Every structure is written in structure tokens, then in C-alpha cells.
């Protein structure tokens, strides 16, 4: 069997494990099954990745040859995103066990089953080569995500989940309308086939409307400013494990789908001329970068602060893509990868603090740096990566973004990137200042450092931020291969 025939299992294993998980009693069993499911996916994708850098792999389901049957078609672009999703799940789960025992003490079987469904959905969106299949997996992952967010301990989690459900469903339905128009015009749903047939009908209103619907629909899912309104509360009130997982993967996968539609299916020579995409995406990206960073500077709830910072970071990714050059696309994909590492580490550090203190309000965390030095050092180190200090992953992606902006003849963008990075310094510094330079609040009971079982996974992710700041073979190489695959015509 070649590796191409194994790839569907990276979706199927978590999908099949989910109902089993739901039936399992206790806490250890469901957790172990979820971990094994994620690990299996990671191993399959990691083994396949070297092959994907050279070319693409295809798997027709039920041996129905595409474009009749549903096909999984994997190249360097979705290989990179799939690796990211599976790796985040695998490396966060060991940390999540203790956290979840505290935050979601009951019915963990269901909880992990929902997680596996969300994970399988994200993997499915990433790997599939069929436009309608994207919609189905999008809804599988979204529906389980709504339920997962509602598991948050605060009752506001329910409201956040409900609002996300409304906005997410509207977004997914927009995508469905777009796919419907594409199907009406071409009679096919296979992405590669769509890319071949669209040029004949590309100058019609229906195809332009399809592009617009799909971009707005996916813009909702990836929290592109001003469609980000669901994100801050959903991240702030979800259980910490879910926040880490969503922040590191969900918006990234939606962004990947948008890239697939813009570059592969419609073709970038069409997308950027049929609609004023460069202008629109550039304006929204810059607005998102500033609005997100600005609001983040004044948040009291630190999870919410990081969530607004995510809106700003999505802005950086979209900025790279809006340049519509291969360097810009590679920079956007690189930031997609690196941002998952830094936000994952930051939210993990905050989750560890929450586990001890029971709050993530900045006032409650004064003096916490002296009580939990290792956890807060991890936060500060990951914060450096978010700011973009040299030797961190954040620096590498901002460096490539700045180079891409210069090459595209837009040097004024560099100033905007630097200004928003300065804003990031401010909101990370606020936390450092509260943690180390303010006396502890008297009302708060002193806490002790987190155990090693939480610190080790946390430091693994923090170390990844520095690893990919120095050894960029996987991140930059992967992003450039992905950009080539996306720009090279059909998937």
C-alpha cells in the first residue's frame, strides 16, 4: 500500500473513534482514545509530507474515479495545514488532560467525542478535493465546536456559542450558495475539474456571485475583520483546551479553504480581477490589524485580549495573501503556521494560570509571576514570538511579510506592520508588568507553580516557537512549497 491510500485514515480514524469515545465511561479512556486518534492522524500526515512536497496524492473514495466520485487530493498546501492541525491536537492533548478534569469534570466521554468530531471535520476540510465535501466537513467541525464552546464554565459561554452558531451557519450557508452557483455553471463539484471548466464560463454574473458568496462566507469563518464579532467571546468563554485548539487551528483551516477557492478553483488571475480583491482584502486586513490590536490593549480579560490579538494576526495573514504575489502568499501561509504556535503557547500558559487561580482577569493576576514563575516565563517567551522578536517564529513570518510588501512595491505596509507590532508589545507588556511588577492582590489566595505534567507540554510548544525561529526548513520550506502548489494551477 502506498501512502496515498493511508491518507484518508487521518480523517477516518478520529471520525470513527468519536462515537466509541462517546460511549466510554470515566476520564482516562476517552482522553487516551482522543490522543491516539490525533496521534494516528499526525503520523500519517507526517509520513506523507515529504512525498507531498514533490507532488500531489489523490485517493478516490469507493474507487469511483474523479470527477464522479469524491476525491481526496493532497498537495503541499493542504499537507502543511493538515500537519499543523494534527500536530496541535497531538501536542495539546497531554496538557489538556488535567485542565479538562478541572474545567469539564463530568461526561468527558461526550466532550472528547465532540473534540474528535471537530478535529476530524477540520482534517476533512483540509484534505478533501470536493467542493461540497468541504461544506459538509465545515458543518461537522462547526457544529461540534458550538457544543464544545458551550462547555465553558461561565454561563456567558452559552451566549458566545449561540452567537457563533448564528454567524457560523450564515457563513456556511453563504459558502453553500457559492458552491451551488459553481455547480449550476459547470456541472461538477470536484475542485480540479471546476478549475478546468470555470474558464469557459468565467465572465458570467453567476460565477462572480459565487466568488463573492464564498469569500464572504469563509470570511465569517476565519474571523476576517469586520466579520470577527463571534470570535472574542467564543475564545474567551470556551474551556481553555478548546480555546487553544480553536485559536491554533479553526481560523487557519478556514483561511486555507479561502486560498484554495481563490487560487486553485477560480485561479488568481481571475479572482483578483473579477472582484477588487486586492483592495478589499488589503483594507480589511489593515483595519483588522489595527482594530484588533487596539481593542486588545484595553481588555481586562486576558483570554479576550489574546482573542482580539488573533483578529489582528488574521489581518497579517490576509495582508500577505492580498498582495497576490507568490512571496506574499508564502508569507501569509508562513504566518498561518507560526501564529498557531504562538497563540497555542500563549493560551496554554493562560489556561495553566486559570487552572491555579480560577480567573484570567489582569487584576487577579497581579504578582502571579513570582508565584508561578515557569508558567509566566512561558507566557512571556511566547509573547516575544507574538511581538516578532528575532530568533522567534513570529520574527520569521513578519520578516517574510515585510520582504513581500517591499517586493510588491508597497513599502508603506512595512510601517503598518511595525506599528501594530508595537501595539503587541504594549498588550504583552501589560501582562508582564502585572505579573512581576505589581504586588499580589490581598484578596487572592497565593498559589503555587503548576506541576510538570502541565509545564512540559507547555514548554514543548514554547520551544517550537524558538525552533521555527531558527530552523525554518519545515515552516518556510513548507509555506513556499504550498504557495507553489496553490499558484501552479490545478491542485
Amino acid at each position, binding site marked *: 500500500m502506498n501512502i496515498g491510500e493511508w491518507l484518508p485514515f487521518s480523517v477516518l480514524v478520529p471520525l470513527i473513534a468519536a462515537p466509541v469515545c462517546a460511549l466510554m465511561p470515566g476520564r482516562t479512556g476517552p482522553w487516551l482514545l482522543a490522543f491516539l486518534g490525533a496521534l494516528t492522524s499526525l503520523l500519517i500526515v507526517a509520513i506523507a509530507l515529504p512525498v507531498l512536497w514533490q507532488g500531489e496524492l489523490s485517493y478516490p473514495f469507493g474507487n469511483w474515479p474523479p470527477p464522479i466520485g469524491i476525491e481526496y487530493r493532497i498537495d503541499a498546501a493542504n499537507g502543511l495545514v493538515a500537519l499543523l492541525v494534527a500536530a496541535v491536537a497531538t501536542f495539546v492533548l497531554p496538557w489538556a488532560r488535567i485542565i479538562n478534569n*478541572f*474545567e*469539564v*469534570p*463530568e461526561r468527558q466521554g461526550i466532550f472528547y467525542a465532540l473534540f474528535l468530531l471537530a478535529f476530524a471535520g477540520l482534517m476533512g476540510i483540509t484534505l478533501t478535493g470536493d467542493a*461540497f465535501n468541504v*461544506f*459538509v466537513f465545515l*458543518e461537522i467541525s462547526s*457544529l461540534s465546536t*458550538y*457544543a464544545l464552546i*458551550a462547555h*465553558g*464554565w*461561565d*454561563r*456567558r*459561554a*452559552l*451566549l458566545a*456559542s*449561540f452567537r457563533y*452558531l*448564528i454567524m457560523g*451557519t*450564515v457563513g456556511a*450557508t453563504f459558502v*453553500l*450558495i457559492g458552491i*451551488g452557483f459553481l*455547480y*449550476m455553471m459547470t456541472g461538477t463539484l470536484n475542485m480540479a475539474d471546476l478549475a478546468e471548466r470555470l474558464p469557459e464560463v468565467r465572465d458570467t454574473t453567476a460565477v462572480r456571485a459565487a466568488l463573492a458568496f464564498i469569500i464572504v462566507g469563509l470570511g465569517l469563518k476565519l474571523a476576517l475583520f469586520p466579520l470577527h464579532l463571534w470570535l472574542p467571546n467564543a475564545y474567551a468563554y470556551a474551556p481553555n483546551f478548546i480555546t487553544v485548539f480553536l485559536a491554533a487551528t479553526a481560523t487557519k483551516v478556514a483561511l486555507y479553504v479561502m486560498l484554495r477557492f481563490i487560487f486553485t478553483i477560480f485561479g488568481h488571475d481571475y479572482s483578483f480581477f473579477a472582484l477588487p480583491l486586492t483592495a478589499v482584502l488589503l483594507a480589511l486586513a489593515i483595519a483588522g490589524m489595527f482594530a484588533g490590536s487596539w481593542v486588545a490593549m484595553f*481588555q*481586562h*480579560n486576558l483570554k*479576550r485580549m489574546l482573542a482580539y490579538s488573533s483578529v489582528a494576526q488574521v489581518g497579517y495573514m490576509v495582508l500577505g495573501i492580498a498582495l497576490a504575489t507568490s512571496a506574499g502568499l508564502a508569507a501569509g501561509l508562513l504566518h498561518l503556521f507560526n501564529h498557531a504556535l504562538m497563540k497555542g503557547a500563549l493560551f496554554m500558559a493562560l489556561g495553566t494560570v486559570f*487552572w*491555579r*487561580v*480560577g*480567573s484570567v*482577569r489582569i487584576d*487577579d493576576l497581579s504578582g502571579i509571576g513570582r508565584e508561578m514563575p515557569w508558567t509566566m516565563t512561558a507566557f512571556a517567551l511566547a509573547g516575544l514570538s507574538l511581538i516578532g522578536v528575532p530568533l522567534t517564529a513570529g520574527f520569521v513570518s513578519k520578516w517574510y511579510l515585510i520582504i513581500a510588501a517591499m517586493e510588491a512595491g508597497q513599502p508603506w505596509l512595512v510601517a503598518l506592520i511595525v506599528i501594530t507590532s508595537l501595539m503587541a508589545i504594549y498588550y504583552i507588556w501589560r501582562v508582564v508588568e502585572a505579573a512581576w511588577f505589581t504586588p499580589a*492582590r490581598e*484578596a*487572592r*489566595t497565593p*498559589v503555587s507553580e503548576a506541576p510538570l505534567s502541565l509545564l512540559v507540554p507547555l514548554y514543548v510548544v514554547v520551544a517550537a516557537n524558538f525552533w521555527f525561529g531558527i530552523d525554518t526548513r519545515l515552516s518556510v520550506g513548507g509555506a513556499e512549497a504550498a504557495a507553489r502548489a496553490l499558484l501552479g494551477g490545478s491542485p
Partner: protein
Amino acid sequence: MAWLGHFNYWVVVILMMIGFYAVIARGNMVKKIMGLNLFQTSVFIMFISAGKIIGGSTPVLREGITVYSNPLPHVLILTAIVVGVATTAVGLALAVRILEAYGTIEEDELVDPPDQPADESHPGMPAGKGDTAA
């Protein structure tokens, strides 16, 4: 009367806008979900209309029939209907939980002081799941 030829699509547009309006303008969560449902259903009608071929029969292989309607949109929409039902179920379940936690499902009446921890009385205490949520 060319516009009558696109009767289905007019219905789709009207239904979609009614649904979308309800989602945006209504404060009651159940009404919002109904609006969302209407919005999704209109898209289903759009797909089904596109699959109809004038003079075409039901897509079941039979003697003496040469023109069939396109069955693929039907299959797609069968999946989409399942998704729609699941969305409605999750949405209503959330509305029930919100009613239990807040005592109302009217958006205007839901009040939470922004950025205040719900358990301000025990700062420093790990907030258990049962403290605020039902």
C-alpha cells in the same frame, strides 16, 4: 412574462431575505433559529430548482423514459437538510440552556456586566463549573 419563468428563484430570494431579516432583527432566540432555518431552506430550494429538467422524469431508471431530472442536487440537499436539522437541534439546545442559566431568551434582557467575573465574591477560588452555569 419572462420573470415568471424564474418563479422558483424569486421564491428563493424572498424566503432568503425573510429568513435573514429574522436572524438579524429578532431578539428572541427561537425566532432567530426559525429565521436561520428559513434562510437555509431557501438555499435548498435553489439547489433543487437547478436540478429540474423540463420534461424530465424522476431519476429512477425505467423503460421508455429518456430524460431524467438531475439527481445530484437532490442528494446534496439531502445531506444539507441533515446539516440544517442538526444546526436547529444544537441551536434550540443552546436556547434551552440559556433559558436555564439566564431565565430569558430575549436578547435585550440578557444582561451580564462586561468583563466582570460572574463569581466576583470568590476571587482566587478556582471557579467550579457549577458556580454559574446550570
